[in-house]
C-alpha cells in the first residue's frame, strides 16, 4: 500500500448565490498516493475545478464555504488552517496550474519576476539569485534562450510557452503535488501533447504526484494511473485506468468513453458520435436519488429514491450505481 499524500473525505463546497445554495462539490472522496497521477474527469460544471481549488483554499469565501468534510494533506486537515499556514503550503508543497495560460500570468510583470517572486517567498532567495533560479526553471521547461526571455512580459509569449512558464512557476519550489486544472484545454492539439509530455517529465524528475483535471478521456488514458469520474458534484466511479477503460461500470462513465471521437472509424463510416442526452442537473436543489438518473437509460425506480452507495467491484474499483 503506497503512502497517501492527499486524502479528501466527504468534501462539500457550497456557494451561496441569489438563487439559493449551489452544491458544487457535494460529498467528494478521493485520495492521491505518492508518485501517482490521478485523473479527475467529468463534463463542465461537475465540480472538478471547485474540488481542485478547494485543496488550496482558492475559493472566494463568501460566497463559497466548506460545508463539511476534510482535506487531509499528509494527515493534516487543511480546512481549519488560517491564511498564513495555507501560504506555507501553497506553491511549496502543493502547486497548481490553470486552464487559461493567456490570463493566468500578470501582464505587468516580466515572467522572470513572477517566477522569482515564488522563490523569494519560499526559498528566501535574494532578488538576483531568485532571478538566476528563474532562468534555470525556464531552461528546465525547454524555453529557448531563457537568459533573455526571463525579462520578457507574458504578452510576448505564445499560449503554449505561457503554459510552460506556468509549469516552471509551479515547479520552482519542487512541490510534492501538482494540481493541473485542464492544463491543455486552451491549447492547440500539437502543443497539448508537448505540454503533457513536459509535465510527465517534470513529475518523474521531481518525484511528485499529480492531480490531472480534464474532460479529455484520451489525456487520461495516456497519463494517469487512476481515475475518478465526477458527476454533478459527486464521485460516481473510481478505478485504475485499465479497469476504467476496459470495464466501465457506471452508465455515465460508459457514455463518456463512447463519446471519445475515433478518427479512424469516423473517416470510414461517417459514424455519428455518440453523445449523452440531456445536461447536468441543477446543483441548486439536487434530487435525493442518483443524479445521473434523469439521463440514464437504465434508470429504475430505486435510482430516484436514494443515492446508490459505493460498492467495490474490483481491486481499487468502486462505483456508485445499483447495477
Amino acid at each position, binding site marked *: 500500500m503506497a503512502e497517501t499524500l492527499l486524502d479528501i473525505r466527504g468534501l462539500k463546497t457550497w456557494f451561496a448565490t441569489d438563487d439559493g445554495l449551489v452544491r458544487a462539490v457535494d460529498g467528494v472522496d478521493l485520495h492521491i498516493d505518492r508518485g501517482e497521477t490521478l485523473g479527475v474527469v467529468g463534463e463542465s460544471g461537475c465540480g472538478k475545478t471547485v474540488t481542485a*481549488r478547494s485543496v*488550496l483554499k*482558492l475559493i472566494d469565501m463568501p460566497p463559497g464555504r466548506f460545508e463539511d468534510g476534510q482535506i487531509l494533506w499528509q494527515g493534516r486537515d487543511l480546512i481549519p488552517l488560517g*491564511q*498564513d499556514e*495555507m*501560504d*506555507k*503550503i*501553497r*506553491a*511549496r508543497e502543493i*502547486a*497548481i496550474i*490553470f486552464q*487559461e495560460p493567456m*490570463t*493566468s*500570468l*500578470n*501582464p*505587468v510583470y516580466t515572467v522572470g519576476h513572477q517566477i522569482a*517572486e*515564488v522563490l523569494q*517567498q*519560499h526559498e528566501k532567495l535574494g532578488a538576483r539569485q531568485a532571478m538566476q533560479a528563474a532562468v534555470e526553471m525556464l531552461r528546465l521547461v525547454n524555453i529557448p534562450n531563457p537568459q533573455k526571455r526571463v525579462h520578457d*512580459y507574458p*504578452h510576448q509569449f505564445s499560449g503554449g510557452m505561457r503554459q510552460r512558464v*506556468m509549469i516552471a*512557476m509551479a515547479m520552482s519550489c519542487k512541490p510534492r503535488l501538482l494540481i493541473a486544472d485542464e492544463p491543455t484545454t486552451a491549447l492547440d492539439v500539437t502543443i497539448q501533447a508537448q505540454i503533457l509530455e513536459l509535465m510527465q517529465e517534470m513529475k518523474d524528475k521531481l518525484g511528485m504526484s499529480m492531480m490531472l483535471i480534464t474532460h479529455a478521456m484520451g489525456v487520461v488514458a495516456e497519463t494517469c494511473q487512476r481515475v475518478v469520474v465526477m458527476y454533478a458534484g459527486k464521485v460516481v466511479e473510481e478505478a485504475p485506468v485499465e479497469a476504467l477503460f476496459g470495464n466501465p461500470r457506471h452508465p455515465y462513465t460508459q457514455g463518456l468513453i463512447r463519446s471519445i471521437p475515433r478518427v479512424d472509424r469516423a473517416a470510414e463510416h461517417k459514424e455519428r458520435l455518440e453523445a449523452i442526452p440531456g445536461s447536468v442537473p441543477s446543483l441548486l436543489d439536487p434530487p435525493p436519488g442518483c443524479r445521473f438518473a434523469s439521463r440514464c437509460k437504465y434508470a429504475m425506480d430505486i435510482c430516484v429514491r436514494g443515492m446508490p452507495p459505493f460498492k467495490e467491484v474490483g481491486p481499487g474499483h468502486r462505483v456508485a450505481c445499483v447495477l
Partner: protein
Amino acid sequence: MSRQYIIRRLLVAIPSLLGISVVLFCVLALAPGDPFSEIAANPAIPPEVAASLRAKFGLDDPVWLRYLHWLSAMAHGDWGFSFASRINVDTLILQRLPTTLIVIGAAQILAIVVALPVGVLAGTRPYSIFDQVANTLAFIGFSLPTFFTGLLLIMLFSIKLDWLPMVYNAELSSTGWPWLWEQIRQSIMPVMVLGLFQGASLVRYVRSAVLDVVRLDYVTTARSKGIGERRVITRHVVRTALIPVVTLVALQMPIVFSGAIVTEQIFRVPGIGSLLIAAMLANDTPVIMAVTFVFACLVVMFNLIADVLYGWLDPRISYR
C-alpha cells in the same frame, strides 16, 4: 517608451495649440465689447483720442491681422498688456499661478491620499459594511456641487464658529511659522472642498478598477503562490488596477482646473481662475486670451502625460 516618442508628441501638440488659439481668438473677437468700450463711453475723453488709441492698439483691424499680431507677439514671448491692471499679462499670470497650483496640488494630493486606500479596501471587500458606507459617502460627495459645500463650510467655520478666515489672503504679513500656520488655516477649506469632491469620484473609479482586477485569473495564480494576501493585493491587484486610474487622474486635470475657478471665486482665492472671471467682467481681452490659452496648454500637456504614464505602467503598450 522612448524620448523620440515624447518629442514627436510635443511637435504634434504645436498645430493643435495653434488651432485652439485660432478658435479662442475668433470667439473673443465675436464677443461684444472690447477694452476700450469704456473709454469710448467716457465723455471726458475726446473721440479723436479714443480713435487714435484704438488705432494704436489695432483694435479696428480685421480679425486675421489682429490674430497674426497676437501670434508674432506670443512667439517673441510678449503675452500682451492688461488694460485693466496696467501690467503685462505674463507678470499677472505668474503672480496668480502659484496660488492656484498650491491649492489644486494640495487638493489633488488629498483626493488621492483619501481615495486610494478607501477605494482599494472597498473593492477588495465588495458589499461589506465598509464598502457600503464608503460608497454612500462618495455618492454624497460628488453629488454636492463645490459652490454649495463651499458656502456651507464658510457658514459653519467662518461665520458661526469663527475658526477659519473667510477670505484667502495671498500677501500675508507674517513670516516663518506664523506664516505657515496662517497659510494652512486659510487653505483648509478650499483644499477640502476641492479635494474631497475630486476624491469622491476617484473612490468610485478605484473601487471599480479593483473589482475588475480582483476576479482575474492571474490574481488566483498570485494567491496560489502563497505570497500572502497583502502582497497579492498590493503587487498584483493595485498595480494593475492603477493603470486606468492614473490616466484618468491625468486626463481629469483640466476639469480640475476649471472646477478650481468656482472654488477660487467662493473663497476669494486670488488664483488664475478668479483672474479669468475678473478679466471677463472687465472686458480685458488680452488676459482672457492668455488665461484660456494657458488652460489649453495644460489640457494638451496632461494628455501627453496620461499617454506617457499609460505606456510606462502597462508594458503591453509600446509607442514607436
